[in-house]
């Protein structure tokens, strides 16, 4: 029998209580995995979309929200001829409620711009020209809206023909309604306005050069800001708020877990006062008793963490099927996030065990043995 056996026996003596504590801590960790996974997923999903389009730099006016605010389309002309710029594609993007879908990305792109190049037709065709009152749907968007080629889709008060279904090579692209820029400008009343410019740089440019180009663009267009694709979302205030809220909610859930483990370990120490006194009488050092309690609570945290990560993965997969999220983002369930969640759980376990361990170390064996 090893010290590890002694610890596991301490946890298995009250299986129901241990199980309930594991549920408590795992719910907290599941919240961490799900909420942080979703918020990180926002960045990775949009980064994937940018990569799919071949966009290196995004010029935007995002500030406090997740979707960019419109700015004059003339800004595109000011940066198009800068050295290092291989191509630009002004776009107008918005999150809108479309028919039965609560939130959907509507992405209007300059006709003939490189942002149309990544769209592979699954069925139908692309619009014939920028004035045709037609849209193409990403595969997920078509699925969510239950539309096919030949149907119509209503954006604001306009009814537009669905002429094609496309695979854009990224979740965000597939979850979008895509149309020509002038059409959406007209529908939303944003005439001569765009919300972003996707920029392609000359192949082979170093990251440092791209960052320099971003600074140059930002100076040329004071009303907007140029950033490396993907980073633009990560740096936005809106994303930071979402991230902070995710962590805040997760920490609250973790706090409930801490209270649960502390309660369990305190109960355990209280119930085992006599056993701890016997161990002291048998020559166990107080430090060994403290270690035993701390290891028990750390182990609760560890297993709670593993269960929590699994629960979080299940939750995330259920949540991403929800109509409000489907097609908007792919949760980022990286190994790093899972390891971090388990580390948090172990830390929670140890933290929760500190007070019970201290209580156990203060036990007077002679009193406990008298009962």
């Amino acid at each position, binding site marked *: 029998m090893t010290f590890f056996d002694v610890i596991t026996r301490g946890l298995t003596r009250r299986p129901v209580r241990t199980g309930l504590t594991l549920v408590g801590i795992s719910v907290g960790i599941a919240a961490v995995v799900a909420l942080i996974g979703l918020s990180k997923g926002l960045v990775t999903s949009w980064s994937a979309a940018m990569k799919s389009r071949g966009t290196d730099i995004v010029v935007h006016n995002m500030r406090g929200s997740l979707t960019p605010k419109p700015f004059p389309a003339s800004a595109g002309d000011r940066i198009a001829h800068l050295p290092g710029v291989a191509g630009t594609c002004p776009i107008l993007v918005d999150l809108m409620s479309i028919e039965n879908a609560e939130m959907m990305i509507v992405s209007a792109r300059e006709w003939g711009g490189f942002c149309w190049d990544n769209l592979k037709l699954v069925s139908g065709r692309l619009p014939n020209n920028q004035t045709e009152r037609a849209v193409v749907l990403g595969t997920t968007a078509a699925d969510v809206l239950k539309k096919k080629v030949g149907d119509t889709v209503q954006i604001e008060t306009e009814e537009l023909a669905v002429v094609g279904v496309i695979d854009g090579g990224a979740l965000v692209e597939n979850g979008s309604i895509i149309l020509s820029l002038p059409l959406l400008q007209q529908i939303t009343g944003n005439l001569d306005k765009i919300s972003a410019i996707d920029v392609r740089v000359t192949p082979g440019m170093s990251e440092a050069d791209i960052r320099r180009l971003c600074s140059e663009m930002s100076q040329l267009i004071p009303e907007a800001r140029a950033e490396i694709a993907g980073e633009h979302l990560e740096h936005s205030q809106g994303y930071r708020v979402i991230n902070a809220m995710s962590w805040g909610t997760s920490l609250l859930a973790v706090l409930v877990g801490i209270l649960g483990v502390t309660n369990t370990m305190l109960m355990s120490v209280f119930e085992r006062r006599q056993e701890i006194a016997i161990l002291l*009488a048998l020559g*166990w*050092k107080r430090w060994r008793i403290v270690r035993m309690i701390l290891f028990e609570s750390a182990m609760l945290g560890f297993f709670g963490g593993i269960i929590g990560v699994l629960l979080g993965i299940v939750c995330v997969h259920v949540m991403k099927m929800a109509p409000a999220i489907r097609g908007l983002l792919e949760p980022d369930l990286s190994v790093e996030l899972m390891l971090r969640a388990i580390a948090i759980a172990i830390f929670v376990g140890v933290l929760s065990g500190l007070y019970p361990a201290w209580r156990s170390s203060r036990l007077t064996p002679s009193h406990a043995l008298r009962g």
Partner: protein
Amino acid sequence: MNGEAAGTGYVFESAGLRKEFEDGRVQALRGVDFRICEGEFVAIVGPSGSGKTTLLQMLGALDRPSAGTLSYRGESLLDLADPAAYRAQEIGFVFQAFHLLPTFTAVENVQIAMFGLKQSATARKARAFELLKAVGLEHRMDHFPAKLSGGERQRVAIARSIANSPSVVLADEPTGNLDSETARTVLDLLNTLHRERNMTLVLITHDMTVARCASRALQMKDGQIIFDGDPVNLSTEQIR
């Protein structure tokens, strides 16, 4: 602390030992003086509340006296740098209520006493097997305490008490919860171990038969020793 008596030649020696509880309202020991030699079998008798268990816990460094001196082989137990090491290496405890850990099997209960010594898990297990065999429980090793009879539990507790080869065994009414026949078996076992291993045995009892097996009796009343001598001179009234 080594196994040899240093200086005084006594295993335990006390002078003016006092123990008070509840800010002096309860006086469990009121100036106890005694000496116990190497290899002695000392029975401590007396009515409930006379201070027997308090005295035994002082000998095992489970509690500290309020006043007086108490030494083990010439070294003060009040100044022990590491009481846990003292209990692990020098002392074995046997309790009336057995005090086995309910979630561990018999063989694990014996092993758990050996965690204080630097031994491998395999060596601990082998030693526990050997000790349970010595107390006649080789067929009950993997049983949990709840599945053992009172006598078997006490034999496991005795095996546990000698797991680290202590030079002293402190037994607090080891036969108190047993029927007379089982009590006899347990007492014989303690006596045999005491003789064969030359251990000092200090045993609390209310049972005259048990007390008369000892080489010496200390009778306590109201926190004081009122008789110290041959157990044959004890009367039944004196120990109740």
